[in-house]
C-alpha cells in the first residue's frame, strides 16, 4: 500500500493535538516527540527540526507546556516538555473539536468508509 503524506496544512493544524496528546502521557524531549509522532501515525505525520521547535516554543509561550533540562537514559542533557494544568485543560476541547471535524468529514465525504 502506498503511504500517503497528509497534506501539510492539515498536518500543521493537527500538530498541536498530536504534541499535547503525547505529552499528556509522559514528559518527552523534542527528538522523542518527533519520533513517537512519526511511529504512532505510521509515518503520515513527520516533524522536522524546522516544524517542531517553533511549535513547541509557541505552546510554551502560551503556557500549555513547560520545558526543563534533565538527563535522558543515555545520560545526555535534553530539554523535556511536560503538559501544564492549562495545557491539560486545553487538550479536552481540542480533542472534541478534532473529533467533530473528522465526524463531519466522514458524514460529508464518507472518509471513514473508503
Amino acid at each position, binding site marked *: 500500500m502506498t503511504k500517503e503524506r497528509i497534506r501539510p496544512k492539515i498536518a500543521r493544524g493537527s500538530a498541536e493535538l498530536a504534541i499535547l496528546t503525547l505529552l499528556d502521557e509522559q514528559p518527552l*524531549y*523534542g*527528538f522523542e516527540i*518527533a519520533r513517537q509522532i512519526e511511529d504512532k501515525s505510521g509515518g503520515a505525520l513527520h516533524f*522536522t*527540526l*524546522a516544524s*517542531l*521547535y*517553533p*511549535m*513547541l*516554543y*509557541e505552546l510554551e*509561550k*502560551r503556557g500549555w507546556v513547560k520545558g526543563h533540562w534533565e538527563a535522558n537514559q543515555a545520560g*545526555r*542533557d*535534553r*530539554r523535556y516538555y511536560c503538559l501544564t494544568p492549562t495545557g491539560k485543560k486545553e487538550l479536552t476541547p481540542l480533542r472534541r473539536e478534532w473529533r467533530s471535524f473528522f465526524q463531519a468529514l466522514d458524514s460529508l465525504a464518507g472518509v471513514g468508509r473508503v
Partner: protein
Amino acid sequence: MIKTLLRERLRRSGIPAAHEEQVTAELAGHLEDLCEQFVAQGLSQAEAVQLCLKEVDDWSEFARNIQRAQRGEALMNTRIKNLWLPGCVTLATATGFLALLQHIGWQPSTVSIGGVALRLYWPWLLALPLFGAAGAYLSCLADGSRSVRMVAGLFPAAAILLLMVIVLTSSLLVEPDVYFLHHPDFLALGLFSWLFLPALALLVGTLPFLRPANPRET
C-alpha cells in the same frame, strides 16, 4: 561538530544572543540524536550530518519562526497584523481624505477623454499612492507575503469593488430594469473613475514594497 555547524547557521540567521545558547543546545541535542539514528541505519557520519542539516530548508525563516514563537507573536492572529490592520489603515486614510475634501467643498474636476466626461478628485487620486504605500509598508513590517502586502495596499479598491458588486446586484434584484443596463457607458465610467484609477494610484504606492523582504523569497 553538529553543534558548531548549528551555532554558525543560527548566528548567521539572527537569533538573539540571549536565546542562542539554550536554543542551540536543545536543537543540537535533537540533531545529535537524529544523526545517531542515521548512522545506526548505515550512513557514514558525514552523510548523516548532511542529512541532519537538511531538516531545515531555510535557516533565516527558521530563526524568524523561533523568535516569533518565543515572543508569543503567534498569539495575535498573523492575518490581523499583516493584512487587516494595514488594509484598514489604507481604507481609513483614503476614505477620510476623500471625506475631508468633500467637507471643505472641493469640487471634482471634469476631464474629457475622447468625448467622455470624467469627474475626478485630483488631490485624492494624487494622495492615494501614499495611502497604498502606508498599507503595504505596515504589512511589510508585519512580515506579510508579497501578495498580502499588495492586498493591504489595494484594500480601498477592493472595498470599492465589493461595494459596487453589492449595490449593482441589489439594484438588479430590486429593479431588474435598472438604468445602467441601458447605459453601459455610465457603468464603465463609474468603474474607470472609482475603481480602475484609484486601484492604479494605490498600486503605484504599493509597488516599492512588493520587493522580496528576504532575498530567498520568490
